[in-house]
């Protein structure tokens, strides 16, 4: 399978974000291996031949240990679908010994038994465990058009199972179908009302912008130049304080994990603490929206 991604070369005029401090460790635990194949997926994850391979457990554990030594503030697991990884519970337990930990999931692998395991983990850990479940619309048909057949029902069931065990899942949604709604409510309000109507009395909703990469990448998507960034505080970009461990090394941000242009070291975290090139069209989205992949 070819890499369906823009990999513009780094040049001397490409702007860069300084490395400010190490706050957030991302672990791209399953690479681009996923049981769904969403049409807006930022890294073109899917069930067949992942272009970015899952991480071995030892690599993830080593990154967690190094991150703890370096004073990391929070840890995130993403993919692909993290719950496809055979060692995910062991790795979550290890991460939770070091820092508060969040998993980004499509929810399809969370059944009652897994929800019980996660609740037990959350209860015994020194720090908070957060589960972020992805949805794209509160309407099943619209959602599944983006995420695949039956994805809505499975994710909503996962949200219920987690909620019933006190885990307070965070629903993460994009605005990919928001133009199809004419009721005047924002995507945030629509999801909040949706959860409240289902008895989720502490609704948690995070809205993410749609990125022009992965399956939505188009030739000629704009990239940043120095002039665009005049007067802009680059230290506010998430790559100024996060790093991602994925197959092949350490990368600048979770959006660009696995891309050669975003690779900052071959393995060690501390070696990646240097400026990151803002070379990719998705950097335009972070610059314009001020978004972060973190919980808040």
């Amino acid at each position: 399978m070819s890499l369906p991604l823009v990999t513009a070369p780094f040049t001397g005029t490409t702007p860069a974000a300084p490395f400010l401090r190490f706050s957030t460790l991302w672990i791209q635990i399953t690479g681009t291996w996923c049981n769904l194949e969403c049409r807006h997926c930022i890294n073109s994850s899917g069930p067949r031949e992942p272009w970015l391979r899952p991480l071995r457990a030892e690599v993830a554990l080593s990154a967690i240990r190094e991150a703890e030594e370096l004073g990391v503030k929070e840890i995130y697991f993403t993919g692909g679908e993290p719950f496809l990884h055979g060692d995910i519970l062991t790795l979550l337990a290890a991460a939770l010994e070091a820092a508060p930990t969040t998993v980004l999931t499509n929810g399809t692998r969370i059944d009652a038994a897994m929800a019980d395991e996660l609740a037990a983990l959350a209860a015994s850990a020194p720090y908070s465990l957060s589960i972020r479940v992805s949805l794209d619309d509160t309407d099943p048909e619209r959602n599944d058009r983006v995420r695949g057949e039956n994805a809505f029902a499975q994710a909503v069931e996962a949200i219920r199972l987690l909620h019933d065990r006190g885990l307070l899942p965070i629903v993460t949604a994009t605005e990919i179908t928001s133009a199809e709604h004419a009721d005047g409510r924002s995507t945030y309000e629509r999801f909040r009302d949706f959860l409240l109507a289902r008895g989720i009395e502490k609704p948690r909703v995070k809205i993410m912008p749609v990125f022009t990469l992965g399956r939505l990448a188009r030739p000629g998507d704009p990239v940043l130049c120095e002039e665009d960034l005049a007067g802009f505080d680059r230290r506010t970009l998430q790559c100024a304080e996060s790093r991602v461990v994925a197959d092949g090394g350490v990368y600048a941000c979770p959006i660009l994990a696995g891309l050669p242009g975003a690779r900052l070291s071959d393995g060690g975290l501390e070696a990646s603490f240097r400026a990151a090139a803002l070379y990719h069209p998705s950097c335009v989205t972070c610059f314009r929206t001020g978004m972060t992949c973190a919980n808040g």
Partner: protein
Amino acid sequence: MRERLAEYRRIAVFGGVYNNALALHALLEDARRRDVEAIFCLGDMGGFGPHPDRVFPLLEDGGILALQGNYDESLAQGKTDCGCGYTDPRDNYFARISYEYTFARTSSENKAWLGSLPGHRRVRLGSHRVLMCHGSPRVINEFLWESATPNGLLRRFLREAAADVLLCTHTGIKWHRPLATGQHAVNVGVIGRPENDGSTNVWYTILTATLDVSVEFMPLHYDFETLARQMDQEGLPPEFSETVRTGWWTTCLENLPSRERSRGKF
């Protein structure tokens, strides 16, 4: 050369006044009865409550040693928002109401005073070196929640600051973490609103030098009914006075970590 720092045996420390002059008045009386040598405020004088300018004479008359919080920084610099660091739309909706109310009713003299406050303070408590900040030592509006602040990060902060005790506030919920190294990290809580546990009292902290450091969280009761009535009379959102009357947070709670959020009502 060893830094010359003011040295104390017993101090009171609080944060987050949030315009709550009634609680501040109660604190001054309570702390004086408990033989503290000095009282420190870790910032955020405004927001949430009514009549911002009533707080400042109490701070001055009480000889409070204050530092600057993000709210104070925003008011002093004429910023358009409180800089609390919220990312959630509902949090930001209520934060804006609160900030605009406070900004319009804080005198320019008091704003200038807020602008003169230091970002950090260092003192000695017996032989222990204490660093005081608002959010974290590195970022004025960084949230250090109990369930979301790793020991590794606290060790890093203390190492970088050459301190034995770290005191912070900003989140609104107190906690104390003794580290295996013998160091301490304490979120001293806030006196401006209750801490989302269904009780109407607020909290401050007394630290006493012993061979180690003794950390006592002090419940503070005040006339919350009068405060809530004043808030209603000022036209502040009923969600705010509901928090004062019930002890449950109704707003600005979307960025609570899972564990702290699960303990609340909303």
